């Protein structure tokens, strides 16, 4: 078996709680998340706001402090490396694409300067920088005329291409894409998704794709991890998870997406969850989903379900009622 590119085991990211916190004194943003990403593969982290999907990505990139757990890159535990080596490895091998390209680019720097900055920081020779600049702009479909423009002079879709080009400049193997198309107009989204898929095929990139948009995730991901209040509810191959979700939260999440087809949408029997997502500061004791779960039983209140194979499905899940 080949070694995965990235392996995350039992990752926990806890923050000291603000003063007004009740009951618990820490905010468990990420609480025991494990997954692996193979070379050239896409793993999606999905869930609603506050579920910890972005924090997980930041933890892997060293942008959020890891409380416990192991992040291994090509078998090497990143946490055990000395700081300088760890930073060098992270910046050489991994990059990030943020949601809002306007906020991710310096408004006073030209497109070319923004893309070249990581290479300059790395002190690449200037001929090499120019060569790579042309290559990455070409890869994402930006014309050389646009190189001297400012972010304000190009469209939102083009700005996101610039952010992707900048992420590619140092030749990373893994890109964390944090809601990369959520801020874009519908007609531009598919262009950017196609670019991401083409780049993966051409360069063998791996993606950690963070998104709340399950239609996009289904299209682009090989594997999906569904998170709720910092914990993994269900995880599995994309087809298995979308065709036969077994966790009641995954079921509700999928059934809540309105389909762009009036006939199908109006014929659907939708699961509408009662209540709101609890604050992560007052997350339930047992299963985090217990307050909204339509199939909860008594022990869900007190006992956190183990992560195990699903009954009658091909996914893994954390649910007392649906465990095999």
């Amino acid at each position, binding site marked *: 078996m080949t070694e995965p590119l990235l392996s995350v085991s039992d990752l926990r990211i806890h923050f000291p709680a603000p003063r007004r916190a009740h009951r618990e004194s820490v905010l468990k943003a990420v609480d025991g998340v494990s997954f692996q990403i193979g070379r050239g593969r896409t793993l999606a982290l999905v869930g*609603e*706001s506050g579920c910890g999907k972005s924090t997980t990505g930041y933890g892997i990139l060293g942008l959020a402090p890891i409380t416990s757990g192991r992040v291994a890159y090509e078998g090497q535990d990143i946490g055990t490396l000395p700081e300088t080596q760890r930073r060098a490895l992270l910046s050489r091998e991994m990059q990030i694409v943020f949601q809002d390209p306007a906020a991710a680019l310096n408004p006073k720097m030209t497109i070319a300067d923004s893309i070249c900055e990581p290479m300059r920081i790395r002190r690449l020779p200037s001929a090499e920088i120019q060569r790579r600049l042309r290559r990455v702009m070409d890869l994402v479909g930006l014309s050389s005329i646009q190189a001297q423009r400012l972010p304000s002079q190009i*469209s*939102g*879709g*083009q700005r996101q291409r610039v952010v992707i080009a900048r992420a590619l400049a140092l030749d990373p193997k893994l890109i964390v894409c944090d809601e990369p198309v959520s801020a874009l*107009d*519908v*007609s*531009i*989204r*598919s*262009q950017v*998704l*196609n670019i991401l*898929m083409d780049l993966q095929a051409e360069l063998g990139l791996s993606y950690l794709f963070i998104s*709340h948009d*399950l*239609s*996009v995730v*289904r*299209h*682009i991901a090989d594997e999906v991890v569904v998170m709720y209040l910092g914990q993994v509810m269900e995880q599995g191959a*994309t*087809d298995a998870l*979308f065709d036969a979700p077994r966790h009641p939260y995954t079921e*509700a*999440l*999928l*059934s*809540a*997406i*309105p*389909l*762009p*087809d*009036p*006939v*199908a*949408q*109006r014929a659907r029997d*939708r699961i*509408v*969850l*009662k209540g*709101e*997502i609890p604050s992560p500061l007052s997350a339930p004791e047992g299963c985090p989903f217990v307050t*909204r779960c339509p199939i909860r039983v008594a022990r869900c209140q007190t006992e956190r379900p183990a992560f195990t194979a699903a009954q009658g499905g091909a996914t893994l899940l954390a649910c007392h009622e649906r465990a095999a």
Partner: protein
Amino acid sequence: MTAEAPLLSVQGLTVSIGGARIVDGLDLQVARGEILALVGESGCGKSMTALSILGLQPGAAEVGGSIALEGTPLAMLSRRAARAKRRQTMSVIFQEPIAALNPLMRVGDQVAEALILATGAGRATARQAAVEVMAKVGISDPERRFGQYPFELSGGMCQRISIAAALIARPRLLIADEPTTALDVTIQASILDLMKALRRETGMGMMLITHDMGVVAEMADRVAVMYAGRIVEAGPVHELFARPRHPYTALLLSTIPRLTGARKTHLRTISGTVPDIGRWPEGCRFRTRCPLADGACATQPLLAAARGGHLAACWHTDLLETLA
């Protein structure tokens, strides 16, 4: 009030700011109890249309054309009378519930204030009515919630407060500008259910502004698609989704990743980007991005009856099948 007059009738609406036409000759109608979805991407003028109908357009905006409520053209009324007519007939909910509420005012008072302003009701009556309408929109323990401030409530709960404030004076028309875009998908599902139930119970008409074709498919009776300040297609929801008669609508629907069908394939794209406001091409404004465009499109097509019982502004509706 004439019995036959539509609830809202807009004719030849234009909105300009500093010489740039943002909305350019827009006609639309909403009947009693009907949900009209106004769909389009950012910058198409859909929100400016809503603001102008509400009389809330920015100070620099020049509004032309006719807006009639229940058969009464607002231009025929004095400024004060037009304002009163608007207040008695319609309400609005905005995209960002937290931004729409006053952070320093108890949420219950904000709901009650809407009734006091619209009808001149007394404080005690308004308070009683506020508690009732808050219960109706699914706020549990409304007596206690009445005294809370927006920061104490979740986004979904704040949106319910906005809806309560919008409904307390029993409007006959509700204008909802991206009411669920800022909410998580499971919360969106419950808010959409609530809006449908309220329409059923009160017979209120609704103009729903959104970019989400799934929300349109679920909610709308009729749809108007906007592009670059104009309506390019309008018709009954089933017809429009099944047989779009404008290439923009057809392409927009085909670019969306779906929850069924092939994965990891190249998605359909619309080439180019939405032209900037005021830099719209002569003639058909979609022609620079349209695969069917030819010389004829340099002349502006009018919104005319197309096959399938709806309206489209395109010279080449007969060629649409070749797009598929």
